[in-house]
């Protein structure tokens, strides 16, 4: 599979058949859009699922139309059972983490913009690129299929902790076929990500055009490169873990299963394994994964803030250094997900220190963004708004991380809504804001039309206020001791906190509804939006030197030569305040 010889391609001639052009295309721009729409589909399903679980939390006996048809056992008559709550939560988490946060910022925007930004015609291995997408697509199919199999999706969460995830259907609903499909889906996803990652690295290293030194690359390219390295090194571990999980479930091995395990009154015929082993392997991948989700956002935000502040990025080299050190440190901190797992207490100390250290580069980057914006002539486009919003939600979420990094505090907070609020804010919302900023920024290039800015602003403000209303209260009820993963809190000591839950659910429904403004804007503008000029944002990087949308081979047979850094803003040349990267050196900029 991976070892198949790469096809020798001559892609100077654009394909003409529909299938080769839009379905099995090797063009990085088409593949980028395919990934993007895959993520849009996933985020839509994931969002609907989050509505369902939020509604169930607050109104556990409500009849939800259609749910009874989808799962007659999980939601008889449309009333969700506690098990089915966990099933839907699993699909929500898996979809969002893997198929949204990992695909859209990296494989979606990266595929679309990386080759153009570095002046290449395509990725280094176009056929492999196509293969990555279709493997990822199969992975998505396997995951969505869990919703339709007899026992529904697994109840084991997106982390699929053994022993329950490894013993089969004895352990509860969805742990038969559903969990098998989950393991297959994630293993396939690993393969797709690996192939994509090595493609990104080779492309960035080898295919830069004349003059595009590493230090002239836009920060987006740096972010995609570093993310690709993280993917290459970490998905390999998750792949191994998924294979072992699959064997435990289907071949009778006991990698993750200890002896004497009594599940639902049945003694399991396993011995010799350790559930901690899965947690180690999973989080060895899982923590770099957090940065795989957020680092492309760092790149996009640095880029967007500079463009719309009309100022060079403050501390370009420092940002590159910080991204590299974040990438490095991300492999040293995975144990902070396991403070409560019963692992060696010495390891807890060992993992706490780098976790606190990793906040330093993240803080430096955040300060440099503020410095980039400070004193600039700001243009408040929707993309810029989401860029500024990113800094806000990232810092807010990140502050919670400082508490959780310390084992003594984490012991109390780990099982509470504090963690839910923290990771949704810092990883989910921040990364999604990065995607929105990227969408509003690159949409004109991708589709040749402008998104509606008025709708964009409305979308931004509702979303921005909305996410704070959803996730900030979670921190506080977490501090009060509200445990996570429970399907409802009826007649419970937690009852006094229920109004907060009601508030968050209403906020989630409202914020979710606001996303329909975005979806409408996206699809309406694709066909009816104003025609986009080549360089609507007066940006300097290479993708803005070509028509919107770019021709099949990106530069129409021409070969760009780069003479300037990526962020030459705030200058005065021929009545413009920026210098394109491709402007001829030492001369007044061409008009």
């Amino acid at each position, binding site marked *: 599979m991976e070892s*198949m010889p790469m096809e*020798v391609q001559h892609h100077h001639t654009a394909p003409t058949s529909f299938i080769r052009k839009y379905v099995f295309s090797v063009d990085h721009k088409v593949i980028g859009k395919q990934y993007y729409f895959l993520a849009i589909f996933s985020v839509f399903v994931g969002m609907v699922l989050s509505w369902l679980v939020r509604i169930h939390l607050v109104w556990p006996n409500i009849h939800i139309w259609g749910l009874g048809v989808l799962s007659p056992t999980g939601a008889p008559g449309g009333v969700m059972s506690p098990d089915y709550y966990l099933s839907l939560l699993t699909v929500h988490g898996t979809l969002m983490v893997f198929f949204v946060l990992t695909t859209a910022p990296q494989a979606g925007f990266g595929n679309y913009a990386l080759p153009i930004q570095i002046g290449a015609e395509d990725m280094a291995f176009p056929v492999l690129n196509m293969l990555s997408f279709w493997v990822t697509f199969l992975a998505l199919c396997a995951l969505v299929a869990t919703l339709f199999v007899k026992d529904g999706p697994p109840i084991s969460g997106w982390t699929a902790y053994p022993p329950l995830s490894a013993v089969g259907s004895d352990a509860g609903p969805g742990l038969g076929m559903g969990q098998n499909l989950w393991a297959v889906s994630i293993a396939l996803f690993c393969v797709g990500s690996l192939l994509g990652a090595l493609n990104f690295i*080779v492309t960035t290293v080898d295919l830069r055009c004349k003059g595009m030194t590493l230090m002239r690359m836009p920060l987006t390219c740096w972010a995609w490169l570093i993310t690709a390295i993280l993917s290459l090194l970490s998905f390999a571990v998750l792949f191994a873990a998924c294979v072992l999980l699959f064997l435990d479930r289907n071949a009778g*091995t006991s990698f993750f299963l200890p002896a004497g395990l009594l599940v639902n009154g049945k003694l399991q015929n396993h011995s010799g394994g350790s559930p901690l082993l899965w947690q180690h392997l999973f989080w060895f991948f899982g923590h770099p994964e957090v940065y795989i989700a957020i680092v492309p956002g760092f790149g996009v935000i640095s880029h967007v803030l500079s463009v719309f502040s009309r100022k060079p990025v403050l501390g370009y080299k420092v940002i590159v250094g910080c991204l590299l050190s974040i990438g490095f440190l991300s492999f040293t901190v995975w144990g902070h997900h396991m403070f409560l797992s019963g692992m060696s207490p010495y390891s807890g100390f060992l993992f706490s220190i780098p976790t606190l250290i990793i906040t330093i580069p993240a803080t430096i980057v955040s300060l440099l963004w503020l410095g980039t914006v400070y004193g600039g002539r700001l243009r408040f486009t929707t993309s810029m708004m989401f860029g500024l919003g990113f800094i806000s939600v990232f810092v807010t979420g990140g502050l919670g991380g400082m508490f959780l990094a310390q084992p003594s505090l984490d012991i109390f907070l780990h099982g509470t809504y504090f963690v839910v609020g923290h990771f949704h804010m810092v990883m989910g919302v921040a990364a999604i804001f990065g995607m929105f900023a990227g969408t509003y920024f690159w949409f004109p290039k991708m589709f040749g039309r402008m998104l509606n800015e008025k709708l964009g602003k409305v979308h931004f403000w509702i979303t921005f206020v909305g996410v704070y209303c959803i996730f900030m209260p979670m921190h506080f009820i977490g501090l009060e001791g509200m445990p996570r993963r429970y399907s409802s809190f009826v007649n419970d000591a937690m009852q006094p906190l229920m109004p907060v839950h009601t508030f968050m659910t209403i906020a989630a429904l409202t914020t979710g509804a606001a996303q329909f403004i975005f979806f409408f804007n996206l699809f309406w503008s694709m066909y009816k939006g104003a025609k986009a000029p080549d360089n609507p944002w007066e940006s300097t990087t290479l993708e803005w030197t070509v028509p919107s949308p770019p021709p099949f081979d990106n530069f129409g047979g021409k070969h760009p030569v780069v003479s300037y850094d990526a962020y030459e803003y705030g200058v005065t040349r021929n009545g413009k305040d920026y210098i394109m990267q491709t402007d001829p050196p030492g001369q007044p900029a061409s008009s």
Partner: protein
Amino acid sequence: MSHSSGPLSATAVHDGRDLPVWGGGALPYAVPSKKLGMWLFIVSDAITFSAVIFAYGYLRLAAPAWPRPFETASIVNATVMTFVLLSSSVAMVLAVRASSLGKVSGAVGWLVATALGGVIFDILHIREWLGLIAEGVRPFSNPWGTPMFGAAFFTMTGLHMIHVTIGVVYLLIIAVGFGRRKLSAVDVEVSGLYWHFVDLVWMFIFPLVYLLSAKMA
């Protein structure tokens, strides 16, 4: 390789595309992109293997007892397998050299010889598996206690066997393609990297799985 005028001409063999016209930057590592791609794949695959081997180490270290059932015959068999795999690697080196000198039939011959080594390895290995299965070794049980022994054995050697088998098919595809002059010397070299890597992994599996479980006389 026939291209030998300055570092930029390395791009001439790059992916079979006409990059010299594209001009662009040089290849910073002075290796064709395909080769860099294969190296990166190898790094990643090495981590997958390591994770499985570490899982085995984790469980064996934690186990109160671990069987050491391999009779001398098994160890001899595994040593012969090591010999076959190492020799096939030498054949692969010769195939790469012949291909870079443009000796098509020589390269194809050595490639087939390498693949043959892989086939012999697989046959010896499957024979070994069948022998153990006949003795009652399963992923979930074995005659000597500690059920995880069978699980670890079949998982690690099975993963390696899959790699060898993929490698044999891969090498034969390359042999046919190179013989018909559809593929370049770079393609042969890249397949060589994969094959040597499979060999390299066995250098760890042989001592860890077999030697550490050899039955003492």
